[in-house]
């Protein structure tokens, strides 16, 4: 448990970096949040020449027209920003794009219009949901364990989420509505990991009454270490397969997951969630609560 001084300072440093990164560089908001009209095209010649298409469309005077390759080499997503002058102007702009690109491309889809207000509201709603979920976790783990565990799990979770958002901002991973699902997955996954270690700590608290708390935490971490390694290797294998073979749609999600599972999740459980219990004063009352804890929790009958 000596490492806690190092790990806590390191975490504090990374948290500050993540928050600064988030504040100054901002997330790379995807189309759900920038809004505009999106046209999906496939280039007939096989490989899209983005630079040339960009100059062609740039000459139309439609503002900041963005081009993005996605999925395959010939698929391009064109974003036409909201035009001043309402629906008619927007339609006119889209027609212009169609004419300018002419026969080079085949229009795969109807036009998609996204107004960022809706997505932003949705994000706000999801954030509230996330916070209530974290609060629920706090309450449940307080009921099932002790309040220190609940608080510890909550801190570990928030720590994880902040680092992950910092990571997404650093690598400029597209932040879209589906990123919500990614953040939720990370939340659930790291929660699962933290609670497994907490379960063992709780058990040790009842079993080894005279061991000092740092030793006890060390001991619990060591005995769950092989499980942690096995589980993380398995999950990482599955995620690697997803990263290599799955389509564009979930790639940003998978890379975020790998970052989180491989690095942050494990680190948080071992180096933050467990040692923070020392500061929260876990086990300070264990002599007196021994009787009740034994009855309250599942234990083997041996």
């Amino acid at each position, binding site marked *: 448990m000596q490492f806690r001084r190092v790990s806590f300072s390191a975490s504090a440093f990374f948290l500050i970096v993540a928050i600064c990164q988030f504040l100054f560089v901002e997330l790379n908001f995807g189309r759900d949040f920038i809004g505009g009209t999106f046209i999906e095209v496939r280039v007939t010649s096989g490989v899209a020449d983005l630079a040339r298409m960009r100059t062609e469309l740039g000459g139309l005077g439609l503002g900041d027209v963005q081009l993005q390759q996605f999925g395959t080499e010939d698929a391009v997503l064109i974003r036409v920003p909201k035009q001043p002058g309402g629906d008619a102007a927007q339609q006119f702009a889209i027609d212009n794009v169609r004419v300018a690109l002419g026969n080079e491309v085949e229009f795969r889809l109807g036009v998609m219009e996204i107004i960022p207000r809706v997505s932003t509201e949705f994000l706000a709603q999801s954030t509230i949901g996330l916070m209530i979920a974290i609060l629920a976790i706090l309450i449940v783990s307080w009921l099932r364990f002790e309040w220190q565990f609940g608080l510890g799990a909550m801190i570990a979770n928030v720590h994880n989420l902040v680092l992950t958002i910092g990571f997404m901002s650093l690598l400029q991973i597209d932040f879209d509505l*589906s990123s919500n699902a990614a953040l939720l997955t990370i939340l659930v996954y790291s929660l699962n990991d933290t609670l497994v270690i907490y379960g063992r700590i709780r058990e040790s608290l009842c079993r080894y009454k005279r061991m000092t708390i740092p030793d006890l935490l060390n001991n619990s971490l060591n005995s769950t270490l092989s499980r942690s390694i096995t589980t993380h290797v398995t999950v990482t294998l599955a995620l690697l397969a997803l990263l290599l073979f799955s389509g564009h749609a979930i790639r940003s999600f998978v890379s975020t997951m790998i970052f989180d599972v491989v690095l942050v999740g494990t680190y948080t459980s071992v180096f933050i969630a467990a040692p923070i219990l020392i500061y929260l004063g876990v086990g300070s009352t264990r002599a007196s609560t021994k009787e009740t804890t034994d009855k309250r929790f599942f*234990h083997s009958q041996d």
Partner: protein
Amino acid sequence: MLYISPIKALSILLTAFFVCLFAVPNFISKSAIDNWPTWARNQVVLGLDLRGGSHLLLEVDDRDVRGQKLQGLQDDVRRVLRDARIQLVSPPVIRGNSVEVRIRDQDYSRGLTILRELSQPLGGGLNTTGARNLDITEGEGGLVRLTVTEPAILERTRQVVDQSVEIIRRRLDETGLVEPSIQRQGNNRILLQVPGVDDPKMILDIVGKPASLSFRMVDSTMSTEQLLAGPRPPESEIVYGTAATGNIPYILEKRVLVTGAELTDAQPGFDQRTGEPVVNFKFNASGARKFAQATIDGAGRLFAIKLDKEVISAPVIREPIIGGSGQISGSFTLESANKLAILLRAGALPANLTPIEQRVVGAGLGLDSIHKGMTASYYGAALVVVFMVVTYGLFGVFASIAVGVNVGMIFGVLSLLNATLTLPGIIGVVLTIGIAVDSNVLIYERIREEVRTGRSVISAIDAGFTRALATILDSNITTFLAAAVLFFIGTGAVRGFAVTLGIGIITTVFTAFTLTRLFVAWWVRWARPQQLAIS
């Protein structure tokens, strides 16, 4: 605890088997399933992000709702004051969110009492909040201000959304589009998802217009020029003709003879004399009676057929129309006549709906992500199985079977619930697999540990399962609660995730604690091991 009675074993296996069985229809073509009994036909519904289609978010026009509400209030105020013969300084006018009226001094207290009766508690008898539909305040010089309250607007908006959902459903049914999903979202929005259609404009044509039809008399007491120039009588208003007929202004009486709500049928057809496309309609009994009376009274005059904000035609009443049927002509093409007939049959929307978001998911893109996702999952599963078997030997095989059954059960339950599977939902399943593998790892690692402390094989296995149970239950109960919170608070993507996660957790606890244990128990009985391969 390693002995599991045959009855228990059988019920475990049967449960797993039958739940998995419900997933089977997903792998069989739609046509083959049609002959099956209904209860066996349940399939997982693929979300729009996976199968492609149009997604439209419509918002009820707040100004429209307020406008209607105020208009109605103004009419009510005028009516009740007139019925009670109250003398007014100035007639009721709409100002902001209120209707203002000035009452003469001698009638003031009587008028105020009558106006106060217009203020009603909201929500009928079930009202618990004490909110009312109107706030009535008094001003200087006999001024009474009736303000429509926000709760009243909200209530009306919700009603508008509910009615609109019904009408949109009817309209889309008429056009024969496949399985559209129409849902209320929040207080003032409607989410419309139509699979297979990748042009949202086409859908907007059908659902974007209120299509409120009314028949009214044309006011012929003044010429159009006089009216455009001078003051208008309060009982009339100017409505313009369609662009196709040259935007001619008409002066219409505000009094409505018959509305589109009294139509029983509308069909496209051709005019017998000119051969141009028309819409033929039929009134219901009361509509027919009203229309007959109006055409008897107004023989020789013009009447107008008004659709939304335009007059589509204004024919002369040549003879009374008593049969209750008629036709609307007005520069239609066959297509536009057909469309109008559909809109009239389905009924008018109670307010304007504005599209605030249109998204299209290409069917190709959706299929592509499914295929790639499938390939990725196969590779991922293979890697996990190999790793588990290498690490735990035979126990790894047990774990792999248990996790496989787990996935089968998740899809079984999803099919049973007819749940919608979206991309976030699939992510939820993948996450569950991770947690399911973890449960098995926890148990096995615990068994290893117990063996190391010098226990016998059977006692170590027993203790491993029992002790891991506490941990697994704790983490899964907490996760389940988080999923439940997300389900109740989240919308769309988050919900899909929460559903699969929640179901996955239940099946995970089931498979890890019954199925894996059953396999291990059988193996112990059969092999009578002195040493554990996994340690």
